[in-house]
C-alpha cells in the first residue's frame, strides 16, 4: 500500500521543474500557428468548410454546423492568434480553452476530414487547459497576470507524456495484425509507388523493404517510448524518432503529423535540457545575460477533482481504441470502432457507390449522381465507410421526401414521407479486387444510425 502511495506521489503530486512544460507550450503554440496558416494557405477552409452542401457530422453531434465563409475564415485566423497567445503564454487559460473549443468544433463539422493527428491536437489542447504551462517564462507571469512558479506538480508533465505514450503504443498494437505483419500490407503496395525517391527509392521496390518497414514500424511504435523514457537510450531513441518521422514525411502525404510528433516527444527530455532551451530563447529574444532564478512559491494543484478528472480521461483513452472488439466482423472492412484509435496508415481501401431513390408503387428507382451532393473527397471517404454511407442515404431520403417528378412519358410520380434509398457499393481492400460491400437491397432510410452493429454490411470474403 505504501509502495502504491509512493508511486502515486512520484508520478502525481511530486514537485518537478516547470521547464519541460514551458517549452512544450511554446512549441505547441508555434506548431499550431504554422499548421493553421498552412491549412488556410492551401485553400482548405473553402474546400472543406464552405464548398460542401452536406456535412458528415458525428453521431450525437448533428447540431454542429459550419458558419458561413467569413465566419469560418474568422475562426481559422482566430486560431492563429490564439496559438500565438498560447506560445507566448498570454491570457493562457482563456486562449487554451478557446483554442480547444474552436479546433474541436471545426473537427466535428465533417468526419470526412478525420485525421488521427487532428484528434491528437484536440486532446493535447484539452489537456493544456488544465496545465499550469503559463506559470513561468510567459507574458502572463511577466505582466503578473498570474503568479509565477518554477515548480509544478508531476502530473502536469506526466499527463502529456502519458498521452504520447498512448498514441505510440496503441499505434503499435494496431499494427499487430496479419495484413501488416504477414503480408506487409499496405506498405508493400504504397512503397512501390515511391521508387523514384532519391537514394532510397531503389530499395523501396523490394518486398523485403516493405516487410522491414512494417516490422520496424510496429516495433518502433511499440517500444520507442520506453527507450525515450530511459535516460541512457534517450538520445539514440530521439534520433530514431526523427529518422522515422522524416522518412514517413518524405514518402506519404501526411502533412504536419511528423513535425508534431518530432517536437512533442521532446517532453521526455530532462528538465535541464528544457531549461537550457528556455535560457537560449531568452538570450536570443530578450537579450538578457542570464535568467535570474527567483524563489517562487510552489504551485500546488493536486486536488481530488483533478485526480478524478484525469482518471476518467485516461480510462477513456485506454478503452476507446479497443471498443472495436465489441463489434462482429473484420475491423478493416466494417470500420466499426475504427476512428479515435491511433490506427495510422493501416489500410488501403477504395470504393465505388451508386445510390438509388425508390418510388413506392412499383419500386422503380432513380439513379443518383453523387457529385451533385458531395465533394470529390466526400465521395471518396463515404464510399468505403458504412456510417457515412448510411448518413448520406438518409440525407438523400430527406432531400427527396414529398417531391414530385414528371416523367418523360408524362407519368407523375410522387415520393412519400420516407423514400426508400438503396445503394450498390463495391469496395476494394488492399488491392484484392472490388467486392460488394453492403446489402444492395436494404432500405437505408429505415436503418438506425448509432453505435449498434450494422448488419447490412456484407461479410468480408477474401
Amino acid at each position, binding site marked *: 500500500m505504501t509502495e502504491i502511495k509512493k508511486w502515486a506521489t512520484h508520478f502525481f503530486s511530486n514537485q518537478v521543474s516547470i521547464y519541460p512544460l514551458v517549452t512544450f507550450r511554446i512549441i505547441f503554440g508555434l506548431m499550431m500557428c504554422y499548421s493553421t496558416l498552412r491549412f488556410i494557405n*492551401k485553400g*482548405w477552409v473553402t474546400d472543406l468548410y464552405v464548398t460542401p452542401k452536406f456535412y458528415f457530422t458525428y453521431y450525437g453531434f448533428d447540431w454542429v454546423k459550419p458558419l458561413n465563409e467569413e465566419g469560418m475564415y474568422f475562426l481559422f485566423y482566430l486560431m492563429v492568434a490564439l496559438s500565438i497567445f498560447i506560445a507566448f503564454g498570454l491570457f493562457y487559460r482563456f486562449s487554451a480553452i478557446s483554442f480547444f473549443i474552436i479546433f474541436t468544433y471545426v473537427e466535428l463539422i465533417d468526419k470526412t476530414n*478525420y*485525421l*488521427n*493527428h487532428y484528434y491528437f491536437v484536440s486532446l493535447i489542447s484539452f489537456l493544456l487547459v488544465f496545465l499550469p504551462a503559463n506559470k513561468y517564462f510567459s507574458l502572463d507571469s511577466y505582466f503578473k497576470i498570474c503568479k509565477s512558479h518554477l515548480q509544478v506538480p508531476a502530473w502536469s508533465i506526466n499527463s502529456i507524456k502519458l498521452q504520447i505514450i498512448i498514441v505510440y503504443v496503441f499505434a503499435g498494437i494496431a499494427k499487430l495484425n496479419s495484413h501488416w505483419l504477414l503480408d506487409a500490407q499496405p506498405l508493400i*503496395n*504504397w512503397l*512501390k*509507388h515511391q*521508387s*523514384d525517391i532519391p537514394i532510397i527509392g*531503389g*530499395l523501396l*521496390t*523490394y*518486398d*523485403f523493404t516493405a*516487410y*522491414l518497414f512494417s*516490422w*520496424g514500424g510496429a*516495433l518502433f511504435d511499440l517500444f520507442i517510448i520506453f527507450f525515450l523514457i530511459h535516460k541512457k*537510450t534517450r538520445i*539514440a*531513441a530521439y*534520433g*530514431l524518432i526523427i529518422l522515422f518521422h522524416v522518412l514517413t514525411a518524405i514518402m506519404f*502525404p*501526411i*502533412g*504536419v503529423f511528423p513535425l508534431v510528433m518530432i517536437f512533442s516527444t521532446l517532453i521526455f527530455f530532462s528538465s535541464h535540457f528544457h531549461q537550457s532551451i528556455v535560457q537560449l530563447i531568452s538570450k536570443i529574444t530578450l537579450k538578457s545575460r542570464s535568467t535570474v532564478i527567483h524563489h517562487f512559491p510552489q504551485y500546488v494543484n493536486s486536488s481530488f477533482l483533478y485526480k478524478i478528472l484525469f482518471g476518467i480521461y485516461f480510462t477513456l483513452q485506454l478503452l476507446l481504441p479497443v471498443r472495436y472488439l465489441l463489434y462482429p466482423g473484420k475491423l478493416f472492412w466494417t470500420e466499426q470502432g475504427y*476512428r479515435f484509435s491511433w490506427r*495510422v*496508415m*493501416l*489500410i*488501403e481501401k*477504395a*470504393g*465505388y457507390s451508386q445510390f438509388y431513390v425508390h418510388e413506392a408503387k412499383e419500386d*422503380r*428507382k*432513380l*439513379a443518383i449522381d453523387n457529385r451533385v451532393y458531395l465533394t470529390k*473527397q466526400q465521395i*471518396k471517404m463515404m464510399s468505403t465507410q458504412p456510417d457515412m454511407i448510411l448518413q448520406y442515404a438518409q440525407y438523400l431520403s430527406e432531400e427527396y421526401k414529398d417531391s414530385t*417528378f414528371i*416523367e*418523360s*412519358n408524362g*407519368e407523375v*410520380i410522387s415520393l412519400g414521407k420516407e423514400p426508400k434509398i438503396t445503394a450498390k457499393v*463495391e*469496395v*476494394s481492400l488492399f*488491392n*484484392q*479486387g*472490388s467486392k460488394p460491400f453492403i446489402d444492395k437491397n436494404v432500405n437505408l432510410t429505415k436503418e438506425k444510425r448509432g453505435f449498434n452493429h450494422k448488419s447490412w454490411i456484407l461479410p468480408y470474403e477474401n
Partner: protein
Amino acid sequence: MISGACLLKKMKKSYLLNTPLVLLFLLSLTACQKRGCTDPNALNYDASAVKDDDNCEYEQFDKQGLLQNLNNNYIIPSYTAYKSAVLTLDSKVDDFVQNPTDSNLISLRAQWHEALLTWQDVAFLNFGPSDYILMVSQTNTFPVDTMLIDSSINDGNWNFDYTSYYDAKGFQALDYLLNKKGKSDTEISQDFATSENKKLYIKDISSDLLNNINYVLDEWTSYSTDFMEDYESNADGSAVSNVVNALCKHYEFYVRRGKVGLPLGVFNGFSQQEMPHLVECYHYGQSLPFAIRAVHSIQQFINGNSYSTNEDGIGLEDYMDFVNAQYNGENLSIATNNQFQLIKDNLSQLNDPLSNEILTNKVNVSNAYENMQQLVPLIKVDMTSALGVLITYQDNDGD
C-alpha cells in the same frame, strides 16, 4: 515467409544498435535457409526454392518509361492522326461547299465518319491542353440543338466561341447537317447549293475543329516535356493521376453514360423510358462503330500499345501487374482486359441504328450496358487504387 520469431529476434538484436542501415545489412546477410523466391516473374527466381520467402526482387517499375511511352507512342501519334483526319475533313468541306454535288457529299460524309472514329482515340485524353479548352464539349456534344443551328443559319448569325454554341457545332452538328433524317442525298446537297449561310456554317464547323486540334497539338509539344518529367509521385495533379482521372471520367460519363446509358433511359427518372434520339449520330443512323472504337482506344491506351503499330509497350496495365493488383483471384490487368473484350463483343452483336435497337432489342442493349457498368469499379476503384492515385489527396493518414 520469414518466420515471425526469426525476424523478431534479429530485429531486436540490431535494434539496440539503433541504425536501420546496420539492421538492413544484418538481415540481408542472415536470410533463413532453404527458402527462396518462388515467383518465376521475379529477377531472383530460385527454381530450387520450395517455400516463398517474400524476398522476390522485381524489376523496378519504370514510371518515366511509362509516361514516355504514353506520350511518344500514343498521345502524340493519335493527336497527329486526328489532326490529319480533321485537315482532310476540312478540305472535303471546301470541296463540297464549292461544288455541292451528291458525290462530294458522299465523299465528305465518309471523311466525317473517319474523323469521328479518330476522335474516339483522343477524346479521353481530357487533361492538360485538351482540358483547358474543353475540347470534348467543343468537339462532340450530343444531342445537338437543332433549333439553334437552324435559326443561326437562317439569321446568318453565330459565334462558335460562345459556350452556348457547344451543342450547335462539332461532329454532331455535322451529323444533323449532312445526314438529316428523312432527306435524300440530293435534297441535302440541294439545300447547301441554295444557302450561302449553310455553306459558311459548315465551313466554320470544320475550321473550329481544326483550330482546336491545332491548339492542343501545339500546346502538347511544350506540355509533354513537363508531363514526362512528372513521374515522381502519383499525387493529385501528377501526370499519372491526371491520365487516370481523365480516362475514368471520360469512360464513365461520355462512353458508358453518353453513348449507351442515356439513350437506353437508365438515367431517365423512375420510369427509365428509352430516349432513342439521344444516341450519337442520330441522323446518320450509325452509333455503334464509334462506341466500340471508344472502348477499344481506352483499352489500347491502358495496355500501353503503340498507336500506329499496336506494339505492346509499358502501360498502366503493366503498372497494375507490378503492384500485383488482384481481382477475383486473377490479375486485375487480365480481369480488366476481359471486361473490355466482353463489352466490345456485346456492342458488336447489336445492330445499328442503335436508336432502333434500344426499342426492339432492349434486353441485349441493357446487357451490354450492364457490362459497361461493371467496368466502372474495375478502372475507377481497382485500377486507381492499384496505381496509388487515390491515396494522395490533402493530408492523409491512410484511413
